[in-house]
């Protein structure tokens, strides 16, 4: 084996940033690695155990590394409508939705969640690696709108409690009406005395909550959840499990599946493209793609055997290279190798066979319908 690189290997001259939960991760036996400039737990007990826990009981993730921006002012709605492809006017206070900041080519500056706190008052959550870029982009496009864009990333720690037991674990700790909180709804609530935003959102394909809490209260809220969750089998879960869970649920990962070269329609996310809402950056290209169709699309596939396809592996039809794998892994719940790949028109139907070049060997795969996993209920 080559000497394994342990956690904490730093390639930059500045030390990685720490979330308010850093000491908690160390005490819990988390293996810390550098991710997007942050020191984050990649796993605790192990990715398979953590993934299974989230699918059967619950897991608790620190996602404080993600960025947040407040978008406020009388022109906030018009501004967001201009720079994103989903219809922000469909949101009501206490509702959030999945959206994308689009490039002029109809591709992704970032994917993000938009939360409506009130009229002219929105919160957006951004990928950690893209936060500086997104803030610069938002600032650049804000001119001409009666809006302010405020970097609120340091204002919020973010915890994700995910799994079928999440509601039972959270309910006794909060005054929020957990049982009636709708999927993609959120409320301001107190959790063990700490003022939070409690959102019924997540990146795992399970029921769950994302809790926005002040950095000062984050560790106490984490500990309260772990204690309340002990009898339910709650475990801490790291970035490795976060990735395998989202892949099974066919959720895109920026940098892997989507970026500034992949249009929202090519990524098969047409459900967030609302061409009728009015003008927005990239609308012209997306309108043409919707009318004419796309020439490549992000589809799900399964390996026929046990070998594992990974990001960057080429897809072949016979001797012809036809596409590329953007995400690939062993799926711990499904117990098979799955992935996402961009494939050309004519190859999108479930059952379509193709080959993946894995380190020089052609291994057979087939297109499958997604999501690969869908929770019951």
């Amino acid at each position, binding site marked *: *084996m*080559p000497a394994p690189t342990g956690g904490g290997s730093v390639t930059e001259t500045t030390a990685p940033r720490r979330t308010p939960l850093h000491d908690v991760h160390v005490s819990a036996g988390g293996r810390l690695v550098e991710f997007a400039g942050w020191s984050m737990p990649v*796993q605790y007990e192990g*990715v*398979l155990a953590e993934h299974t826990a989230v699918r059967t009981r619950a897991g608790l993730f620190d996602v404080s590394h993600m960025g947040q921006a407040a978008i406020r002012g009388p022109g906030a709605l018009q501004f967001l409508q201009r720079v994103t492809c989903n219809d922000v006017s469909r949101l009501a206070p206490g509702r959030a939705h999945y959206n994308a900041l689009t490039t002029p080519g109809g591709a992704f500056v970032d994917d993000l969640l938009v939360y409506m706190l009130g009229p002219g008052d929105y919160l957006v959550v951004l990928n950690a690696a893209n936060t500086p870029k997104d803030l610069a982009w938002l600032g650049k496009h804000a001119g001409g709108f009666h809006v302010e864009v405020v970097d609120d990333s340091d204002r919020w720690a973010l915890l994700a409690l995910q799994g079928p037991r999440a509601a039972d674990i959270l309910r006794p700790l909060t005054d929020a009406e957990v049982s009636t909180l709708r999927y993609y709804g959120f409320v301001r609530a107190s959790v063990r005395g700490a003022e939070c935003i409690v959102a019924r959102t997540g990146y795992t394909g399970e029921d769950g909550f994302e809790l926005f809490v002040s950095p000062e209260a984050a560790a106490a809220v984490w500990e309260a959840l772990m204690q309340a969750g002990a009898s339910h089998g709650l475990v801490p879960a790291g970035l490795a499990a976060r990735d395998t869970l989202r892949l099974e649920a066919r959720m895109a990962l920026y940098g892997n599946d989507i970026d500034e070269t992949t249009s929202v329609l090519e990524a098969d996310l047409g459900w967030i493209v609302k061409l009728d809402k009015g003008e927005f950056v990239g609308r012209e290209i997306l309108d043409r793609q919707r009318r004419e169709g796309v020439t490549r699309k992000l589809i799900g596939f399964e390996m026929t055997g046990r*070998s*594992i396809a990974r990001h960057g592996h080429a897809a072949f039809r016979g001797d012809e290279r036809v596409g590329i794998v953007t995400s690939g892994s*062993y799926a711990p719940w499904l117990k098979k190798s799955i992935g996402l790949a961009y494939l050309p028109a004519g190859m999108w139907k479930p059952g379509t066979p193709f080959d993946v070049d894995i380190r020089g060997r052609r291994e057979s795969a087939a297109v499958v319908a997604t999501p690969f996993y869908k929770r019951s209920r």
Partner: protein
Amino acid sequence: MYPKEFRYSKEHEWIAVDGDVATVGITDFAQSELGDIVYVEGPASGRRVGAGEVLGTVESVKAVSEIYAPVGGEVVAVNAALTDAPQTLNTDPHKEGWICRIRMAAPHEVDDLLDADAYEKLILS
């Protein structure tokens, strides 16, 4: 923890020598660093390898790692059980998790490997 009768490579493989046949595996340190192992691709039986050449790969969920031959020779046996139970490398890396057996072409190559004390020093450093 590290059997005294084994010899170890700096790349975290172990061998157990019986006559001119060396059984090869990865160490407990290696499996711990790798995390949950989900796929093992060992060498084909009959293959000839030189010391230091890539024998196969071990895959965790996140990463692919190469296994190097600690000694050269002909692969005479492969642990087929690992195909359906790759996690054996995590649970029993020094025994049930053996990967292959090599009939050594140059048994003196064993002398170039570390003994248990030297290996334990290496992983603590």
